[in-house]
């Protein structure tokens, strides 16, 4: 499959301070790629280089095999949708006028087509009722939703979404999440997505890259990263609370890493094999009610990588 986004050995320095240190990743057609990392890790800088707003110190940052930094990239820019930290909306214009402005800029010259597209998008983000209200009077969440509609005005083939759900209520977050999934699965839109909400990223993204201080520390499919970086944790629930200490000592003696769970009557065994743990506890006369493997999440992976948990 052809890569839609290619980032290879990307380095960016501001006044001799290296903010991106040779990062490499690829995003294929129709994929949603999550770029994660703490504040200042280099996520927005990466996006800005890909969009041609910043020049790389060295390395490649290509979209459809071309750089958006070139003056001759007008046609390419028509295929790209952008939602950055700023909403990109003019406060003195109404919601409708803002979309109309961008529709014209992106070359939707047919008035009827433009009107239909704007109506469709305003309904999609549930803002049709407030279309004649100036953006300055819209709430933060409404502006963000309108900005999302703006980013879709040109039917983009590639979409850069930098924290699209910031300032949104839970209902709108779900709307954005579902829309992103629909865009990628139904219409094959390639999406580069950043967010601090790791659950959201896990639900939306197929692949992720984790940036820490300008370096791509982890990169791959979400499921792959979870199995690579997460510890296997087994929860052993006992029949009687009084046996908790007995079980704890028995496993500790056999060299297991054990923790008492916050809920009563259970202990957690890190990196243990469930049948073996069960066999050993039963042989020690402990009454076990249930043994189950706890699922790991992207959040666990993230904190393990970023904070070294």
């Amino acid at each position, binding site marked *: 499959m052809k890569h839609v986004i290619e980032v290879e050995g990307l380095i960016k320095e501001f006044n001799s301070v290296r903010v991106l240190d040779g990062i490499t990743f690829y995003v294929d057609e129709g994929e949603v790629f999550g770029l994660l990392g703490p504040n200042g890790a280099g996520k927005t800088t990466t996006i800005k280089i890909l969009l*041609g*707003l910043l020049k790389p110190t060295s390395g490649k940052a290509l979209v459809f095999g071309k750089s958006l930094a070139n003056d001759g990239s*007008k046609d390419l820019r028509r295929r790209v949708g952008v939602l*950055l930290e*700023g909403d*990109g909306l003019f406060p003195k214009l109404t919601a409708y006028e803002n979309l109309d402005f961008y529709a014209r*800029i992106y070359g939707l010259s047919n008035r009827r087509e433009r009107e239909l597209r704007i109506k469709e998008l305003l309904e999609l983000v549930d803002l049709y009722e407030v279309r004649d209200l100036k953006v300055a009077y819209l709430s933060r969440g409404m502006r963000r939703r309108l900005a999302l509609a703006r980013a879709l005005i040109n039917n983009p083939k590639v979409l850069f979404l930098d924290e699209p759900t910031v300032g949104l209520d839970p209902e709108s977050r779900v709307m954005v999440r579902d829309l992103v999934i629909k865009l990628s699965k139904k219409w094959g839109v390639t999406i580069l997505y950043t967010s601090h909400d790791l659950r959201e990223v896990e639900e939306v993204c197929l692949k992720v890259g984790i940036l820490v201080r300008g370096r791509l520390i982890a990169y791959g499919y979400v499921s792959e990263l979870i199995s690579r970086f997460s510890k296997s944790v087994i929860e052993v629930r006992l029949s009687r609370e009084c046996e908790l200490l007995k079980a704890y000592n028995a496993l500790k003696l056999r060299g297991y890493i054990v923790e008492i769970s916050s809920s009563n009557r259970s202990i957690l065994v890190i990196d243990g094999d469930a049948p073996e743990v069960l066999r050993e506890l039963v042989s020690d006369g402990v009454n076990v009610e249930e043994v189950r493997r706890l699922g790991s999440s992207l959040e666990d992976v993230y904190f393990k990588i970023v904070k070294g948990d």
Partner: protein
Amino acid sequence: MRRSLIIVKKELVETLRDRATVSSYLFVGAFLMLFNSTTFKGVINVEAFTVYLAPVVGVAVGFNLANRFVREKGEGVLETLLCSPLTLTELWLGKVVGLLIPSYIASLISVMVIGIARGLTLDAPLLIYITLVTPAFIASVIGLLGCLYWILGMREVRILNYVVFFTLSAVMFIVLRFVNAMSVSIELGYLVITATSLAMLSLATCLMRYISKERLIKP
């Protein structure tokens, strides 16, 4: 060019909804009323006064609107605009024309007010001056100002307003003085001023090519 017209339209809509424009017009109106009521008829030569009044009023309104060259940065719109198919030159040109129109309208109104109140005789050279030289001069001041703001990283530096205005005014008045002293036809003088203004605009257009997006979005 088509995209520049979209910017022009947006600028005009914003201008109509902007209190700064209304206050500019009110200021110009109040100044002219005060001037007309406190200056005795015959004390000034209306034709000569118009030569100064027209560009000064236009540039004064243009100064008031010049922050529009840098507004998008503060409003968080600039980066999104720069990601669109719009080029920097198209954006700048759209802004120049979008700000020139209200500035020139103010200039025309002021000439009309003084003209009607003081009985201005509109001969051919003066008509050329008002319809050609004045808008070219206002456009060059606005255009150079916008270009310099952008070269400085989208910062509105007020002192530049005066530097650009006084430099171009000096050129204009030297030409007019030269025309008077050398007994050259006034039309030729006007042509020189228009050509200089257009040359300044062309220079600004060329400079646009050397402004990087990175420079503009830098905090």
